[in-house]
């Protein structure tokens, strides 16, 4: 009688690395399950050091206290799923107050006060639903991107708007220096300059082939990742391509050609799902793999081709050597960039092969660069994983020592905490209460 595999990873089909149950570097030894949503939870935003807001397909926005796991507020108002959420901090002199801006499929935008749970402002009857939000706090304006790009001020007054031509609309917005923003629309990036005095936008369009959602911003540079696995570093000012990396699986390296033909990489397997940076490194989630790209050396410093069983949905660089990723397979994994022990892993030259597609609208050819300096490549070592969700982990937000919040398609949020620290805090509370009660 065959029994199920108890070994944790024995039953998995793919050769995903398995850390096992012994995880000395994993400090998350306590969890709290936060219930409240009725549908997929897609977004998490950090409000301040101890509060975060979660939003999802049920149109609810819940505000949580991360320290206690308490649900502080329930922001009801949207009738359909929430498509974007961001914080909006207004500092008037001494006090700074953080609000939440949410956009929903019911084509409305709302401003919430997370302290009271009030809906401060609402705009409904938009022409289309908003897909992304960008707040420029120093200018006290914010943008909503969808099929049209709108500029709003802090009082929810429409400053200007511009219709788009593309089908999918704006999928991402980032801020650039010199009062510019960049918007990713379908296959192009548009750069708009904000001239507040005139109240309108001067825009420069720079067409790049096959650009897709995620982008990130660093000092004078920004990066874009595409559906086809292209990673491009742009100069934010003069709009040049500084580096081009086409991340692709080494099909030629694998043994059986026929199988490769059959299992040709699906678009999602090589699309860049998520990009994040800390100024020195860019972390790209490509399919179910992770790539760490150094901006300084313009090379991939570490990678893990199959980091998860399924697509990676969100990543974060915790420090220069630590990173975290979550995936559709329902797990969160923590990685460490380690020096590669020599000849531990046979390096594969030409892994990042050069691929030129010769698209007609391509302005500049990607700078060709081969990864030849193999010894420079370090490895991503799995230091721990968090298993708890029964659905894809959509996003996570780290609160440093206060813990980590993950949200998932199983309608749950899980608050992961350092058990030792929590136990210490509880002891503190115990003795405080003991003192209040005057003994046992």
């Amino acid at each position: 009688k065959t029994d199920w595999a108890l070994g944790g990873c024995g039953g998995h089909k793919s050769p995903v690395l398995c850390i096992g149950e012994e995880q000395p570097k994993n400090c998350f030894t306590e969890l709290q399950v936060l219930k409240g949503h009725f549908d997929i939870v897609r977004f998490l935003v950090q409000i301040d050091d101890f509060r975060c807001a979660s939003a999802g397909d049920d149109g609810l926005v819940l505000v949580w206290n991360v320290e206690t796991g308490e649900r502080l507020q329930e922001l009801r108002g949207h009738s359909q799923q929430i498509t974007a959420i961001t914080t909006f901090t207004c500092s008037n002199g001494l006090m700074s107050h953080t609000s939440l801006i949410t956009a929903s499929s019911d084509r409305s935008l709302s401003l919430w006060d997370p302290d009271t749970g009030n809906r401060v402002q609402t705009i409904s009857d938009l022409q289309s639903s908003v897909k992304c939000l960008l707040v420029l706090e120093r200018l006290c304006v914010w943008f909503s991107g969808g099929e049209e790009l709108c500029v709003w001020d802090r009082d929810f007054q429409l400053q200007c708007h511009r219709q788009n031509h593309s089908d999918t609309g704006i999928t991402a917005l980032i801020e650039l220096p010199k009062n510019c923003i960049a918007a990713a629309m379908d296959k192009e990036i548009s750069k708009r300059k904000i001239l507040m005095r005139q109240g309108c936008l001067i825009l420069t369009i720079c067409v790049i082939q096959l650009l897709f959602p995620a982008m990130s911003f660093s000092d004078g540079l920004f990066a874009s990742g595409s559906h086809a696995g292209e990673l491009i570093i742009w100069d934010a000012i003069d709009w040049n391509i500084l580096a081009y990396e086409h991340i692709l699986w080494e099909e030629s390296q694998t043994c059986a050609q026929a199988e490769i033909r059959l299992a040709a990489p699906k678009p999602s397997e090589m699309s860049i799902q998520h990009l994040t940076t800390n100024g020195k490194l860019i972390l790209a989630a490509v399919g179910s793999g992770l790539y760490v790209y150094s901006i300084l050396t313009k090379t991939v410093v570490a990678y893990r081709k199959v980091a998860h069983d399924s697509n990676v949905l969100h990543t974060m660089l915790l420090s220069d050597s630590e990173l975290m990723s979550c995936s559709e397979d329902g797990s969160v994994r923590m990685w460490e960039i380690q020096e590669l022990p020599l000849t531990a892993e046979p390096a594969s030259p030409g892994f990042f092969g050069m691929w030129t597609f010769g698209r007609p609208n391509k302005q500049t050819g990607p700078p060709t660069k081969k990864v030849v300096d193999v010894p420079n490549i370090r490895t991503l070592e799995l230091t721990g994983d968090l298993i708890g969700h029964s659905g894809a982990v959509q996003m996570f937000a780290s609160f440093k020592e206060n813990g980590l919040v993950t949200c998932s398609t199983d309608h749950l949020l899980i608050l992961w905490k350092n058990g030792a620290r929590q136990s210490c805090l509880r002891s503190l509370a115990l003795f405080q209460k003991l003192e209040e009660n005057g003994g046992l």
Partner: protein
Amino acid sequence: MIGSPDVVAFTKEDEFGQNNPDPWSIPEEFSIPLHPLADSNPWAKTSYAKFTKDFILISEFSEQVGPQPLLTIPDDPKVCGTFDLNYFSLRIMSVDYQASFVGHPPGSGYPRLSFVEDSRVVLGDSKEGAFAYIHHLTLYDLEARGFVRPFCMAYVSADERKIMLQFQELSLRFSQASECLKAGNRRAFAKELQRKLQDLEYTHSVLQREEGLQREAGPQCMYSAHAVEKANELANVEKSIYEHRDLLRQISCYHCRPRRDPHAVTCQKCMTQCLSECEALLDKYAKLANPFSYTDKGRKREDVQSPTDDGGGGKGAEEDEDEGIKRRSSYTPQLIKARSAKCFDKRLKTLQELCDEPFYEATMELLKETERSFRGDLCYLHTRRMDKALRRRQRITNFLFEEDLGDEDEDEGGMLRPFCAVNHDLDNYTILNPPPIVLGPEPVELDPLEPPDPLDPASETSHTQESELVLEEGNLDSSPSDQTLETQESSEETKGSFSSDKSGTGLAEKQQSLASVRSELPDPDSDLTPDADHNTDLERESSSEDMDITAGEDEGDNGGDQTPVSLLEVVSELEASMEDNCERRSGIESDLLVPIDTACCMAQEGFLYEASAPEAASHLDQSSHHQSSQTLVVNQEPQSLLPLQNDYAVGSLCSESPAAGLELPVGLLGDAVSRTTAEDGSDYTMSASTGSDRAASPLGYGGVVTLRQRKRAGHVALRFVRQYPFAIQALWCLLSGRTLVVLGADEGRVRRLVAALALFVPGPGKCGERVQAWLSCPFTLTDLKRWKLIGLQRVASPVGSSMLYSLSRYSRYISILDADQKTLRCPPYRGQLLANIADHRTYIRRGSTYFLHVQSTLCRLAAKAFLFTFTHHLHLPVSSTEGPEVVEGRRRCFLQEQLGLGEEDSQILLYLSQLVTQQYLQPPAGNSAVAPCFSFNYTTSVLYKI
């Protein structure tokens, strides 16, 4: 007899009590007697008594037959053995010190009710070897001589010292029961008075009408003997009306008089309710003083009553005028013969009929509770009390391994507060909106247009109507708010649906099926009989379980709730009442009552006999009813028999039908638990008999209440330990907070294992809510957080595969005990702490011994956890210069060197400490939105095989 030398003087021994002056001194009960008694066996103290254990006896001094025993608690003839209850009743009734007087005091024209305080006395019967605390009380009965019926409740024990030392508490508890009984009796008495007044007024009006007719007929009739007789009768009736009205007034001012009895604490709520009710009645009957014709009065009262008494019935009644009114006229007054029946020619009410139903039940519950709490000898009581007192001081760590103290302690704590045994929430509506006439025993009137064939007693209409009546009353009883129209209507709907298709037999079937369903519920530890070696043999296991089920059924049938019997009673009473109906109509027509037959006396004997010996009585009762239905004497007196029977039928259905028991919310766990204890206490019940009851009760300490259950759990746990070499690892998992999943295909085996292992779950919750005995769907993380011990069904299906997936997915959080393949997958444990409770070569052979052994070990653990949790410097820095590492080092040092615990053993203590901390920090209300934490650690598991 009053000066009987056996009446024992009560002396209080000062050194006994809760606050023992010297905690280290051995109680006297433990000390070895220097000079053993003649019959050298110190344990056979009760050997010369003819009963085996203490019991409560309720007796009455009947004006017809003298002292007689009514019932015993526990209700088991084996308890009394050969002890002569009749003789003992004579003894205890003969020391009645209640200062009662009967009849008319000089100066008042009306009979007076005597208000007497209860008396308490301790009596010993050295010849019988019986000692008793006796509590005398007096109940009111309209038909009794002087309107009083003397009763007494006695706590009978073979140990004189026990009674003397427990006198205060006995007195208190019996006072409570007595007050409760008396309160119910006053209500019943008021109702009876009301009924009687109605009858009298009706009679009055009829007589008046006749007199008027005579007067019209001419003066020649004026002075005929007949007319004089009529006039006398009228005067008598009027006098009687005044007398009864005065009685009603007296009973209503019962509460106003001062009480001398210090124990007589009455529930304020009951009192005010009763008072207001009586006043309302008084008001009502003060108005009816003017003579007017019955029809007017009837119409008028109908108008007055229907909105108030009938609840929402009024609306419907207006629609179908005549019929509705006919049906809802809740009590039809009857003609009363001028010369009321005297002493021996009537049947006296039973104790149950003398008291309002909820009050009676509450009293019985109180007495049962009393009996339960005084079980065991003095030594046992003493240790248990000390144990409780000690445990109450350890509230902080109690929740870990101790069983719940239960609410009886709260009773003990708040002993002297006004106490009311009646649950006011339940019967709120009856009291606030008193429809005494509606609730009163009233046969449904048959349609006069279609008189049922008296030769066909089982005619369909009467059946349906009677069951309708029963159900209606059930509805009234159960629905807490039928003041509103809607609920009343809905209850009528259900009633209608029942009456349409559910005849008496249908009802019976339903109840039977309910009973069988109940007994077929899976039994967690059904075959714990030591001979059943079911570890390997599946077949034998299943067969033994079958046997258990049948045994449970049998037991359920003749033990607790006598379902079939009560149904039979209903049926036979239908017939009888129908009989009465026809006959009463004929009686009304002829305007004369039939002379009394001896049949009612026979019935009375049956009832009384039943009260004293219920088991035999069920058969006798049955047969007597059969008899009555067979003989079908036409000339029975309706008044005396009819209401009583209906009362009885309704009461027995309400109280004893298993359906009603099943309808009880699960929250009433205490009830179920108390029932099991009651059964468990009788040593004669079969070992498998309580299975059906226990099935509903959850596991863990909250569920394992009785000593016997604990013994069983200990037995299974011991067998687990002896059988599996990796038991120590399993116990370690439970104690260190790692959820243990018991996986198996066979439900019985898994449940048994879970039941045994539940002993080791720290902080299992009041009702064992951290233990899930049997789960057959995939579990989630939330379940893991909630349950620490899970019995999981192994199934070979898609469901099973998803279950296995969840098992392997969450494998880092759980340990898996495979009951089929006898493997355990869990982190390795190398500690020594658990070696002495999980030694599979242990010399302990008995489950109870092992249980106590485990208890003591766990108790020590809890003490260590307490010490660890509340030692400040082990958790927090002493000075500001210390970092967390220093504290950590100190903690480790404490655990390893001072407590001598290894790495894994420390985890146990850390987990217990965490539980203690959480419990301490928990807000008292416990109603916070914060989800509980779930801690774990990342360690590798290994697979243990047998």
